[in-house]
């Protein structure tokens, strides 16, 4: 699987929140996260009422945005989450849901990029907003 774009993701178990990349370019990425009852975070969030924490949905969107930022680069840089902007959570995500994550570049500037991000279940938006991602050594 050397062509698997996820091989460039520096995150590993238990902090990888993407299962499969469907589309990836320097402008946009689309990926899947399958949420199962085995997720450790569902054991306590919440007991008897499993809901994927919103911060982990943001993390999934940020991981994909990091892959978009590193697309085509010979050496992948660590991508840091620099800003979370106007994220709305519109429906709960739970075991059995397949989360489709989309990250699109609005603007690149130096080693920063502003992304429009979305997480969908089917055609329904679970979360959407904007993220700013910085690659290692960002300064201005």
């Amino acid at each position, binding site marked *: 699987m050397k062509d698997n774009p996820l091989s460039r993701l520096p995150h590993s178990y238990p902090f990888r929140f993407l299962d499969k990349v469907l589309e990836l370019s320097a402008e946009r990425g689309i990926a899947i996260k399958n949420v199962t009852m085995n997720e450790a975070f569902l054991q306590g969030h919440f007991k008897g009422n499993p809901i994927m924490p919103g911060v982990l949905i943001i993390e999934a969107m940020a991981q994909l945005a990091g892959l978009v930022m590193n697309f085509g680069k010979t050496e992948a840089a660590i991508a840091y989450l620099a800003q979370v902007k106007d994220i709305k959570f519109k429906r709960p995500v739970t075991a059995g849901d397949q989360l489709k994550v989309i990250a699109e570049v609005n603007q690149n500037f*130096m080693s*920063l990029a502003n992304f429009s991000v979305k997480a969908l279940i089917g055609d329904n938006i679970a979360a959407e907003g904007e993220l700013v991602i910085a690659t290692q050594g960002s300064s*201005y």
Partner: protein
Amino acid sequence: MSDINEKLKAMLVRRLKLKMTTQDIKDNAQLFGEGGLGLDSIDALELVVGLQKEFGVSITDKAVAEKVLVSVNTIADFIEGRK
């Protein structure tokens, strides 16, 4: 010229959620670093997004950014020059 300056200041306050009014921003005040408005690199990105969306000017080159993103006056001059 001053019209652009006022629009720029309004955009800075609104987009960067500055805790000041447009009257508090001097035309030649340094936007970044100590002693000026104290903006950071994430503010710079937001500023670039705002300049593109609201003034139709694009800044992607580092050398241009370092010359233009200095003060309200330098940004206004850049916008004027692109008209």
